[in-house]
């Protein structure tokens, strides 16, 4: 379907339920597959309607050269829900950048969000923007050097080499790396005013390892679950445990 002017790959698993979950994947090598092949089946089996889609520039969704600010991603999600006729508040489940998008959407459209589950994500504050700028600039430089791919294969295997090639193609053929950190950024006051329940799932060695409970202590209805010894790839490496957390969370926060 066409969402906010872009041909967008959307996968719906209607379960005839009273709750709706929207899965928001991460940036770079990610696509809706990371949720569709892990959490979507058990969530749908629990009677919860599931919406998954490839974010702009990812998977099988159109990849324009420009248009990758968080404002663009928020507008896409808003248009998608309106076109699908989803008129009840939804549970947003985001992985990495997908969680950042969930926070921004909750600030922009608070009445449309029932709850948030964020996996290794933080809201788009100035702190986040600086971190993202550094990570993305480093990634772009690294992926422009051919020897990097041989290093990735030697250290992580052929599959990761292929993923890196994919990420390089996405990032270097678009303005994604430059535009994503532009926001619009959120103030800490806006983050603290997110009124819906939020579950933050982190790896103890992930991107927020320096202060694991900084975010949830700020949120009025924030809860934290930490996987000890786990890095950033919580979703793919702990998907069974994440599935149980998500199912229990939605059960607790159903209308």
């Amino acid at each position, binding site marked *: 379907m066409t969402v906010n002017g872009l041909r967008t*790959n959307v*996968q719906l698993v209607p379960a005839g339920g009273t709750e709706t979950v929207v899965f928001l994947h991460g940036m770079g090598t990610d*696509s*809706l*597959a*990371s949720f*569709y*092949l*892990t*959490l*979507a*089946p*058990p969530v749908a*089996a629990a009677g919860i309607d599931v919406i998954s889609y*490839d974010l702009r520039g990812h*998977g*099988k969704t159109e990849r324009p050269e420009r248009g990758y600010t968080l404002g663009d991603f928020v507008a896409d999600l808003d248009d998608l829900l309106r076109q699908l006729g989803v008129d009840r508040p939804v549970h947003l489940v985001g992985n990495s950048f997908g969680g950042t998008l969930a926070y921004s959407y909750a600030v922009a459209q608070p009445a449309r969000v029932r709850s948030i589950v964020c996996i290794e994500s933080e809201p788009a504050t100035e702190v986040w923007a600086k971190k993202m700028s550094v990570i993305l600039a480093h990634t772009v430089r690294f992926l422009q050097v051919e020897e990097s791919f041989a290093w990735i294969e030697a250290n992580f295997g*052929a*599959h990761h080499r*292929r993923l890196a090639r*994919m990420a390089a193609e996405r990032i270097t053929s678009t303005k994604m790396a430059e535009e994503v950190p532009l926001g619009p950024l959120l103030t800490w006051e806006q983050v603290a005013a997110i009124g819906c329940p939020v579950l933050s799932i982190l790896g103890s060695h992930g991107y927020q390892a320096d202060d694991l409970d900084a975010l949830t202590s700020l949120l009025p209805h924030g809860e934290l679950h930490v996987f000890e010894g786990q890095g950033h790839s919580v979703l*793919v*490496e702990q*998907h069974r445990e994440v*599935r149980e957390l998500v199912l229990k969370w939605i059960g607790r926060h159903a209308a």
Partner: protein
Amino acid sequence: MTTDHASAVFDVVAELLTELVGDAEVLGIEITPDTTFHEDLQLESIDLVTFASILAEHFGADVNLAEYLAEQDLDDVIGLTVGDIARFVGERTCPR
């Protein structure tokens, strides 16, 4: 599952794969049970989602590849072979 059923299912799965990859000979390979989805066929995880839809359309909703993969470990999904998919489809479509 009988050998005949397994063999027939494998042939259908291999044929349906051409909807995704076109003619596998273009890649210089012959599809066998050991052919890997990602490395040999150069497909991405998002292609597995598309292939799940193709399988469900052909064999019916009981053949839910996403549900099957959700129970697998990451390394098994990365190393998924055409034979793995055919075995799963064969078990779900086995005449009783």
